[in-house]
């Protein structure tokens, strides 16, 4: 049992054309009693139908906006539903459901408002070398640009308190959203902890994930945000 009757945990699953993996991911979550809101980001496959048959709630973007936008929509929905804790969880099957309980437990134990999953805290993690180097570079970039000392900056598994979620102002629709969330955490001044989690790399999740060449796009997006309004 992960939650008492008095508190509600909402798991936000952004999904874009995830029909292949979504059903398994969602049944794993609902079996543990989590309330799941799937944000269908304008999928063209049966993602929405699958989500509606399993998840507690489905919100659908009329057009594809990007994972960052989907997360922001899901967070807005969960806050409106009175969530006490919010979890972001990728729909491609790379995260493990038991890790959620550990993130929530870390929030409660530490009193922090954000618990960020890290695949590097747990010790050895099998992953492609290029991906490892890229993630190291992202870690260094985050330390320089936000001052956050993290071991893993691009992990889709995070938990946050209601207060923490409400403090985020997310405007990066696409790839730069992971960096933006960290920048917003730094700006909020609220406490955060890192919690070891396991990422299951599959051919599917690697193919859907970001590529090395996306790093430049991310840097440009982050820079562009600083230039207007």
């Amino acid at each position: 049992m992960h939650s008492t009757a008095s508190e509600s945990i909402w798991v936000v699953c952004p999904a874009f054309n995830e029909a292949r993996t979504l059903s398994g991911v969602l049944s794993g979550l609902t079996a543990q009693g989590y309330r799941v809101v799937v944000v269908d980001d304008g999928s063209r496959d049966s993602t929405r139908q699958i989500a509606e048959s399993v998840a507690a709630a489905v919100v659908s973007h009329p057009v594809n906006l990007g994972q960052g936008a989907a997360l922001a929509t899901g967070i807005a929905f969960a806050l409106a539903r009175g969530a006490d804790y919010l979890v972001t969880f990728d729909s491609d099957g790379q995260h493990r459901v038991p890790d959620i309980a550990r993130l929530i437990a870390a929030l409660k134990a530490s009193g922090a408002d954000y618990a960020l999953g890290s695949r590097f805290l747990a010790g050895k993690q099998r992953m492609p070398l290029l991906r490892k180097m890229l993630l190291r570079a992202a870690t260094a970039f985050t330390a320089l640009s936000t001052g956050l000392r993290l071991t893993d900056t691009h992990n889709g598994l995070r938990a946050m308190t209601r207060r923490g979620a409400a403090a985020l102002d997310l405007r990066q629709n696409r790839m730069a959203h992971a960096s933006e969330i960290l920048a917003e955490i730094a700006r909020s001044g609220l406490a955060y902890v890192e919690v070891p989690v396991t990422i299951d790399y599959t051919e599917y999740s690697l193919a859907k994930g970001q590529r090395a060449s996306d790093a430049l796009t991310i840097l440009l997006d982050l820079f562009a945000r600083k230039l207007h309004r």
Partner: protein
Amino acid sequence: MIAQAVLSVLLAGVLLHGWTQMRRSPLVAWLSMAAAIVGLYLVWAPSHTTELAAVLGIGRGADLILYLWVCISLNLLLSLHLKLRAQQETVTKLARHIALANAVVRAEHGQAVMDTAPPTVPQLPGGADTPTRMRGQTA
């Protein structure tokens, strides 16, 4: 003289445009205004271009103008890019409102958190407590 008058009017337009962009994007505004002022100066003192070009290490005055033009074009591209991003944010807000207003929520998810029964509960669109719900909309 005619060319100078026409160019002056055009550049004054750029100057004004830059000034109006000050609140939206200060960087673009300053670059536009600087370009316009330099342009005005060179229009009325064309002989200075050659001297200025020499100072900057550029061969001819005409080349200097060409380079400046390239800089102005890049600035315009940046300005357009930022406008597109602002538009994208507006579209995002709009799409988010639509998505939240049309949320498909199970009738009751609060009780029986361990319940793994098949989802036979009828799905109801939206929720009364979703603040983004549009007024007067019927479910």
